[in-house]
């Protein structure tokens, strides 16, 4: 083959292009999207660099450590340097160029690239290299590092007003192609509605649009969508993929994390048309802005979206290193389209980002304040509480009322004529006492908690359960370790003298636990008594009072009284307990009436004698006692305190501790409890969100050898790659900050940011970016199909003040976007991927859009914006088989009511088991930044759309709308559905097809009405009662057919 080319090629190139040339170039069109068609001279960036980068740079590129024969081909100087008397490239002299000689060498030992690289230079590529050398072998900086220049619009006249179209038409003409006609109006409005809001247009919108014959009817419709609150939701969806947003930590336990306020901030930013430069700066460095607002701090959540771990045994330094690398790579890919990840381990073989430069970027993120271990908590600091004005006012009001009640307590206490038994003569006699801590309720003024997934449950005599005492008993069934916990008591339990703790337990004989345990909190959970298998409880130092074996399991099938002499578990008279827990391993356990017995000598009983109590707490901190009173109490009774303070302390004692007087405050206590409950409810509802900050003292950063966290090499300072414009510092401090980095990214002379952003927006609307590899603008990425258009838009975007809505308007109002997507055999064969855009985009809807569409057209949708993630329908056993036993996202708890019908953007995203309706349609798992989703077409998708309860219920709801609102005849009803779902009227064949289907279903369901009722009862919403069930069932399958249509599932 080489031989043949040698003979024929000169003729090819000297003459006019002949058939062979055209064939070669035609093939190249599809591998190198911008092609060579109509181009005269070789351009290094377009034609040569991709070949050298793929075949040669691994050994002859930037990476000095792996450079062979000291030859580099990525620079002109390197290529011309002489080695043993010859150079790789001698301009204009093919015969003297070693590159040419070596790639054509017959001897396998001579030939390049070497066989073990498995790289082969094709004949097409050889042709290009040959021409390049013959034409002088000029080099260019990689295209994306050259600043974009707004080229003059191509002169294509013909009344083309949108600049986008000028570029597209210009290229099409050079290819001998033309734009397609504009799509039909009903297609157009549906396309624009999905593109801009992620939802279909309503039939009313379509109707009005079809009637509007003004020349700018479409532009006006686009403007309405740009102003819709759903615009931000649709735009945010794409950004969430890039930012790797999710609702769990992602590693190990994969517990819930709270940062949905950041997601809502993204939605609001797009709705408010926040400038893209501000959008950038606030996310990367909002915390470093002067007096940052809550919004600006919320924005920094971008850099907290990465996966984190709290796996026991992990090494902090390793995790911190990983987080910083992830943040660096994500920033780099998101804003610069550079896959800096490779430079983690070695000099980037293809792109001019050295390992040292990567770690200079990394140095910006290596001082993050969040800990290595996320703690498996909802809020891993730093976080921000987002208190609204209204909530703050409510909280202030509750606090005022509470203060009032506390004052009232003091007044009421002052009126009590208290006589301290310690001062009574003769000394009162000791008596037996019993204090009950739990019977029907946990003690007041505390928090009750339970193992994740299984809430605390009381059973009652009224439901036929066995109860030992009172009305209710605590019940729990679990396969493993589980417990109910009562803690943070404001009124501690006091251990009397000679105390024995008791509890009543009922073990199920059919479902016997391996172990049961009682546990008490006194400055720590360090007092445990357990029955049964000692080994299965992992807590507490064995054979100490932290973990005491009380013997075998009690008898099952009846109530048994358990008793623990307190000394056995390390407690003594006067101890204040602020929590207890009942624990089991497996089985079913009922607990009831837990308390303590003992004796009380009034004169020395801290619950009766103020003096005795005060003596007891001397030198200790008293839980729940306000600071200044605590100091008094701690100083002891002999410290002769201020009289007023003493009285206040007594008042507190009488209210809180004294067994005789405490009941007098029951009424006021219950009022306080109500206030506290209201306060806690507000506080619980107030979201917090992860934010990003630096540690006060920046950490030193080093080049990490081979990307290993424990192999630091040279120290580096924050900085940027040399190939890019210099970093300007805001202040004259020597060290560059993240704010400097963020501002540098959006500085006017940065060659990448605007291009990368514009390209991603383009991808959003056309399915493929002008640069197809939207996450890779480096030398391994594809070249832009329309470089001039990309640059023109990038400059325009930047110079417009980074105006996102204006850019979006420009794109979606272009004739290019508005073209019919119909493929002819010519356009299909010529350009299957539609890179030349001789037709409009036809794209399968994204995962969220598919579900939202079904909800919307069926009328089920709940369009509420923002808030905590929700759990819609999900098949059983998606979370559970992968969940860690201790994870709080082990069990999926499906929501009910309106939350089921929220837009998919708000679906809770568990990273280790993402929502199947999302995964099935190519959504990423959000573990890493994703700049482009696949669009697959699988049978699993068909199964979901036919059988998922979500879609079946939507079909039924749509069928119901057809029956109630759609008219009286089948024809009218079908037309109604067609207008609702497809924004158009059905034709006669379509109607006939569905009517034929309907007849068969009707017949069958009239004969089998019980099947009909089973079908229409699926889903949580219920069908209207006045409808004939067999008819509704038959229409449900018709509606399901409509929801499964290819036309429905596509933005046509």
């Amino acid at each position: 083959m080489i031989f043949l080319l040698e003979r024929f090629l000169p003729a090819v190139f000297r003459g006019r292009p002949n058939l062979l040339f055209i064939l070669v170039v035609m093939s190249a069109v599809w591998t190198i999207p911008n092609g060579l068609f109509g181009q005269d001279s070789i351009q290094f960036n377009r034609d040569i660099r991709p070949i050298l980068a793929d075949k040669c740079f691994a050994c002859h590129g930037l990476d000095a450590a792996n450079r062979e024969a000291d030859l580099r081909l990525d620079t002109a100087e390197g290529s011309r340097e002489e080695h043993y008397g010859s150079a790789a490239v001698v301009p204009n002299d093919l015969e003297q160029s070693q590159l040419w000689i070596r790639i054509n060498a017959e001897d396998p030992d001579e030939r390049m690239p070497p066989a073990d690289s498995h790289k082969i230079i094709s004949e097409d590529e050889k042709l290009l290299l040959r021409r390049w050398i013959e034409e002088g072998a000029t080099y260019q900086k990689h295209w994306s590092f050259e600043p974009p220049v707004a080229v003059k619009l191509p002169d294509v006249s013909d009344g083309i007003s949108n600049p986008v179209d000028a570029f597209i038409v210009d290229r099409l003409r050079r290819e001998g192609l033309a734009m397609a006609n504009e799509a039909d109006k009903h297609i157009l409005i549906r396309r624009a509605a999905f593109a801009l809001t992620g939802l279909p247009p309503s039939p009313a919108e379509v109707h009005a649009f079809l009637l509007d014959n003004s020349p700018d009817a479409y532009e006006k419709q686009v403007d309405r969508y740009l102003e819709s609150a759903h615009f931000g939701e649709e735009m945010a969806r794409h950004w969430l993929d890039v930012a790797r947003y999710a609702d769990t930590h992602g590693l190990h336990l994969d517990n819930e994390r709270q940062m949905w306020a950041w997601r809502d901030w993204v939605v609001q930013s797009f709705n408010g048309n926040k400038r893209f430069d501000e959008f950038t700066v606030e996310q990367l460095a909002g915390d470093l802005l002067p007096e940052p607002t809550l919004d600006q701090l919320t924005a920094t959540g971008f850099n907290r979206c990465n996966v984190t771990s709290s796996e026991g045994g992990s090494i902090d330094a390793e995790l911190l290193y990983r987080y910083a690398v992830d943040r660096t790579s994500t920033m780099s890919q998101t804003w610069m389209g550079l896959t800096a990840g490779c430079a983690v381990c070695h000099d980037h073989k293809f792109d001019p980002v050295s390992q040292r430069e990567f770690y200079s970027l990394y140095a910006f993120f290596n001082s993050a304040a969040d800990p290595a271990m996320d703690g498996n908590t909802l809020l891993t600091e730093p976080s921000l509480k987002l208190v609204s004005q209204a909530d703050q006012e409510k909280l202030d009001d509750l606090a005022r009322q509470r203060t009032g009640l506390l004052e009232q307590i003091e007044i009421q206490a002052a009126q009590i004529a208290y006589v301290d038994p310690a001062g009574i003569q003769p000394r009162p006699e000791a008596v037996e006492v019993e204090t009950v801590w739990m019977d029907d309720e946990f003690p007041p003024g505390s928090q009750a908690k339970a193992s994740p997934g299984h809430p605390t449950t009381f059973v009652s005599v009224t439901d036929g359960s066995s109860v030992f005492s009172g009305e209710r008993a605590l019940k729990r069934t679990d396969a493993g370790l589980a417990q109910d916990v009562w803690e943070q008591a404001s009124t501690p339990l006091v251990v009397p003298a000679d105390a024995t703790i008791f509890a009543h337990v009922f073990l199920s004989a059919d479902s016997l636990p391996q172990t049961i345990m009682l546990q008490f909190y006194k400055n720590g959970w360090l007092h445990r008594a357990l029955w049964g298998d000692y080994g299965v409880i992992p807590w507490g130092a064995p054979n100490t009072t932290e973990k005491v074996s009380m013997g075998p399991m009690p008898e099952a099938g009846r109530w048994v009284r358990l008793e623990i002499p307190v000394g056995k578990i390390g407690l003594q008279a006067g101890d204040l307990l602020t929590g207890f827990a009942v624990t089991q391993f497996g089985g079913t356990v009922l607990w009831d009436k837990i308390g303590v017995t003992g004796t009380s000598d009034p004169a020395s009983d801290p619950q009766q004698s103020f003096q005795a109590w005060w003596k007891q707490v001397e030198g200790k901190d008293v839980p729940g006692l306000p600071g200044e009173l605590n100091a008094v109490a701690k100083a002891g009774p002999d410290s002769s305190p201020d009289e007023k303070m003493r009285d206040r302390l007594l008042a507190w004692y009488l209210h809180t501790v004294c067994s005789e007087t405490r009941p007098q405050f029951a009424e006021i206590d219950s009022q306080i409890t109500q206030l506290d409950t209201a306060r806690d409810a507000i506080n619980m509802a107030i979201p917090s969100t992860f934010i990003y900050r630096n540690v006060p003292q920046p950490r030193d950063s080093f080049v990490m050898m081979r990307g290993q966290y424990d192999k630091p090499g040279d120290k580096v300072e924050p900085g940027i790659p040399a190939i890019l414009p210099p970093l300007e510092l805001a202040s004259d401090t020597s060290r560059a900050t993240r704010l400097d980095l963020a501002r540098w990214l959006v500085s006017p002379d940065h060659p990448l940011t605007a291009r990368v952003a514009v390209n991603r927006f383009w991808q959003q609307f056309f399915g493929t970016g002008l640069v197809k590899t939207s996450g890779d603008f480096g030398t391994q990425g594809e070249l832009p199909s329309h470089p001039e258009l990309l640059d023109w838009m990038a400059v325009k975007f930047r110079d417009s003040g980074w105006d996102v809505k204006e850019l979006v308007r420009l794109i979606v109002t272009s004739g290019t976007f508005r073209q019919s997507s119909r493929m002819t055999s010519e356009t299909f064969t010529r350009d299957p991927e539609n890179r030349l855009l001789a037709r409009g985009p036809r794209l399968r809807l994204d995962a969220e859009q598919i579900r939202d569409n079904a909800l919307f057209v069926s009328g089920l949708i709940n369009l509420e914006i923002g808030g905590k993630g929700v759990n819609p329908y999900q098949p059983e056993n998606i979370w559970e088989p992968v969940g860690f036993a201790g994870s709080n996202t082990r069990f999926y708890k499906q929501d009910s009511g309106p939350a089921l019908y929220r837009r998919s953007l708000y679906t809770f995203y568990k990273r280790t088991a993402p929502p199947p309706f999302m995964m099935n349609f190519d959504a990423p798992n959000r573990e890493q930044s994703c700049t482009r989703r696949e669009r697959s077409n699988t049978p699993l998708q068909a199964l979901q759309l036919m059988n998922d309860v979500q879609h079946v219920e939507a079909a039924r709801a749509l069928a119901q709308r057809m029956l109630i609102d759609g008219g009286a005849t089948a024809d009218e009803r079908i037309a109604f559905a067609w207008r609702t779902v497809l924004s158009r009227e059905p034709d006669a064949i379509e109607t006939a097809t569905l009517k034929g289907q309907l007849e068969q279903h009707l017949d069958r369901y009239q004969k089998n009405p019980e099947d009909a009722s089973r079908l229409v009862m699926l889903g949580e919403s219920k069908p209207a009662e006045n409808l004939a069930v067999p008819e509704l069932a038959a229409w449900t399958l018709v509606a399901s057919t409509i929801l499964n249509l290819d036309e429905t599932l596509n933005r046509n």
Partner: protein
Amino acid sequence: MRTIQEQILAGNRRNFFGDVGVRLGGLALGMLAGESVFGNGVGARPADRVHPPLPGLPHFSPTAKSIIYLHMNGGPSQLDTWDYKPGLQEYFDKDIPASIQGGQRLSTMTSGQSRFPVAPSKFKFEQSGESGIWINKELLPFTSEIVDEISLIKTVHTNAINHDPACTFVMTGSEIPGKASIGSWLAYGLGSENNDLPAFVVFTPQFPSDSNGQAIYNRMWGSGFLPTRFNGVALRGSGDPVLYLPNPDGVSRTDRRVMLDALEQLNHRTLENFGDPETVTRIAQYEMAFRMQASVPDLTDISQETEETMTMYGPDAKVPGTFAHSALLARRLVERGVRAVQILHRGWDQHGSLPYQLGNQCRQTDQASAALVRDLKQRGMLENTLVVWGGEFGRTVYSQGTLTKDDYGRDHHPRNYCMWMAGGGVKGGYVHGETDEFSYNVVENPVHVNDLNATILHCLGIDHERFSFKFQGLDQRLTGVEKQKVIHEVLA
């Protein structure tokens, strides 16, 4: 009437499991294989395959057509199963010599321990089979009877010391989430022979409730950067075996046929209107879904299995969701031409109560693992099915927490652990590699996780160096960017 697009596609059908759009990796392979990658951007593929292989694959004649990968999640103790160290008895409760420990990285769960006392295995080891391989026969009585079928590798080592990264590493060749799993690679490269079932199927059976069950992650069978249609499909033990498989309540197979007939007619009109070949694919996918609704229940219906077979797998084999049931279904899948099956069994993380918990773990898996190998052999399928058994790392010779002769725990140990392979071109009755007397360091023939994966690919006819996918500027490989080697010694 056929449209132009249908005609084009008839001769060059797209992958039923998804739009093809073969990216650069595939394209490059196509070029290497000398096949056309031009025209419509899709390399020529076998026309009647739902899961066609990439052009040019396999690279050479495979010794295994399918793989069943038994992943024991948590880190099974090599010291208490396969790596027999009789000399340790005299070291009971003595600190591991510094010369052995060598200042290696420890997990922070034990790095704070003041002592590192040696815990010899409490179990009795015996030599088994004609090959005389040492094995803990107390816990692995059934496996001990198939040792002549296996290659035991005693020197597998990994980079990661914690579960999440180590699991991600053994399955995807990288500790960082985002890479493709081994099953996804195989589905991508080799496709599958079965047109009615997914190419890569995963089971996540139950595990003992009182064992220490670590989490597993969808990414362990995820496609990472590969198109998502190469994700493993989790066949579930409870609920529908395939998500959304059955028709809704009240909808019969006949109803579905009626609906699909209407749908197809209407979609043909869409095809006429828009001329998009994706519409053809969609029509075919709905038909495939309809077929799967029949083929999957057929797969999971084990009522025709013989008494003998059921006895061999043990009583659990009748219970959906158990390891034994999964193992039986794994054989049925491979029998139907499915390329890759993976069973991920949890609970092997014995930091404490090791002898007790390990007993439970083995009881759930030993009989069925051995039965699987025997069953495959009886049916003549073992010679082209590769069975792999192992976890993500090993465990330390020194005890974590309580240490008595009968009770101890062990921390994570990435420096050596045991895995075995059987069938599919692997030697039987062979032991590869040796560790020191404390099972703490490799002394002979280390096998990195990536070497092991390279070997697995090799058995399936793939040269791991030539099997790549362009992503983030790199030619991504299952076996990473470093040089890896196929372990030729274990190959028959």
